[in-house]
């Protein structure tokens, strides 16, 4: 069970003089739920963009499901699903159509497309709404549809960038219930970024705290809490210790406005 599905070796991305991700080295096992935790600007999204082949690394390498992100990008794309932070389903199509287009783009065999879409809709509790335009969906439904869309082809790794940003606590729990089921039923590896500490605490097998493009700490929640030594510590304290400040400080104008726009669209 400890086969590595994600191997990251000294992955680095620079934007001009700024190093967003700095010699990142990590390994994630198949079926693991893994979280990258960090403030805005810590390099989480840049890391995900490189691993999903949206962004070329400046140096270093990573293998996803055994394929190189630099030289085997198309194979990587076939093996992964991605739910970006911003809304990624089309509001001017129905829920069903949003799934159908990806069933076709991912070359699902024609005779399996309908069954797979039906299953995905049932799995995400969206069957009743599948014929409605997505612009009429609630925020939680939109996120669930995005996850359905990103997992239609049964990817080995699902990348999620802040999957629950902008959702109310009930919708967040529903999204997480479905994500956990995905792992249980299909063995999907979940790799996600968040800045909700309690989500990382409740659902993750392991956590990496990112700070200024580097991994500041890595381990299970218990290991991280124990790593401070001397009595019991909360994950909040662990975060402050490794990242130097509380979680919600920092971030550029663009980070903040993108996040608020997403929250507004989902809310």
């Amino acid at each position, binding site marked *: 069970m400890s086969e590595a599905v994600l191997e990251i070796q000294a992955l680095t991305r620079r934007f001009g003089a700024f190093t967003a991700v700095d010699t990142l080295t990590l390994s994630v096992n198949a079926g693991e739920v893994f979280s990258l935790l960090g403030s805005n600007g810590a390099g989480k999204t840049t890391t995900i*963009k490189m691993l*999903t*082949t*949206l*962004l070329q690394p400046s140096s270093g390498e990573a293998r996803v499901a055994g394929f190189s992100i630099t030289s085997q990008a*198309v194979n990587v*794309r*076939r093996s*992964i*699903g*991605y739910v*970006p*932070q*911003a*809304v*990624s*389903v*089309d509001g*001017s*199509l*129905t829920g069903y*159509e949003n799934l159908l*287009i*990806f069933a*076709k*783009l*991912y*070359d699902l065999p024609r005779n399996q497309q309908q069954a797979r879409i039906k299953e995905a809709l049932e799995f995400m509790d969206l069957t009743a709404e599948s014929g409605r*335009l997505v612009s009429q969906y609630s925020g939680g439904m939109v996120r669930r549809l995005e996850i359905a*869309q*990103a997992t239609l082809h049964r990817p080995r790794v699902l990348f999620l960038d802040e999957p629950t940003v902008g959702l109310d606590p009930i919708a967040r729990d529903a999204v997480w219930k479905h994500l956990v089921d995905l792992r249980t039923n299909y063995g999907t590896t979940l790799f996600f970024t968040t800045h909700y500490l309690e989500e990382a605490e409740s659902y993750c097998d392991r956590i990496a705290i990112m700070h200024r493009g580097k991994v500041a700490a890595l381990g299970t929640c218990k290991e991280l809490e124990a790593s401070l030594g001397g009595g019991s510590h909360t994950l909040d304290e662990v975060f402050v210790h490794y990242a130097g400040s509380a979680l919600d400080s920092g971030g550029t104008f663009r980070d903040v406005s993108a996040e608020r*726009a997403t929250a507004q*669209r989902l809310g």
Partner: protein
Amino acid sequence: MTATFTYPFIGLIEKTFVITEFELRKLRHDFTELVTRALQPALWLLIFGQVFSRSGAMHTGNIPYLDFIAPGILAQSVLFVAIFYGINVIWERDLGIVQKFLVSPTPRAALVLGKGFSAGTRTLSQAVVVYGLSLLLGVKLSWRPFALLNVVVVVVLAATLFSTFSLIIACIVKTRERFMGVGQVLTMPLFFASNAIYPTAMMPGWLQVISRLNPLTYVVDALRTFMLAGSTSTFSLRQDYAVILLAGTVLVFIGARLYPRLAT
């Protein structure tokens, strides 16, 4: 195993049509844009066309001026619809839609060409409007099926060409504000430096040179030849098609190279 893997070219065509299909499905859910777009060609033909037709200032040989500009106005409305098409991809970028498509194994050229073809299909409604108005104004149209088929092909190819050009601009400027600015700056020169509303023979020499480099000139020439009864091509239809196809192919190639920039 799959088409895209085994036969890259077939995969490209297949995926292009998937993208086109879903762009057109959106239209089925909301077709108001088709109605609002009918206004512009109507204004140009009914007002500009009528006024200049009466003035006699345009020397269009043995073709009446209204007949002369009807194909020009069709080409113009194809250009105007297509040139702002890129704003959609900026919108899709601000959402996460572009990113999700780019993470899929779809060939980039299919993403670009699929969008182009859908713009092409959308602009066919403009052809229907221009044909309707032309009938009303007594323009001598050609109704031969071969000619009509060619009008459809030229309109779709022209819209694909200009919408891909628009997509390239979107990939470079990336924001709506800058895009609108650049779009405005480009549309009018493309339109005026063509044979859409006056013959190139009336232009000063330098403008004639520019108009020969402008793909819109060849689109207008082809449309004029196929739309009007008894009209002949200025440059030859072979040259018109060659320029349109070549420019389109080059732009799709550039667009496919630049499209991933939208995700960064």
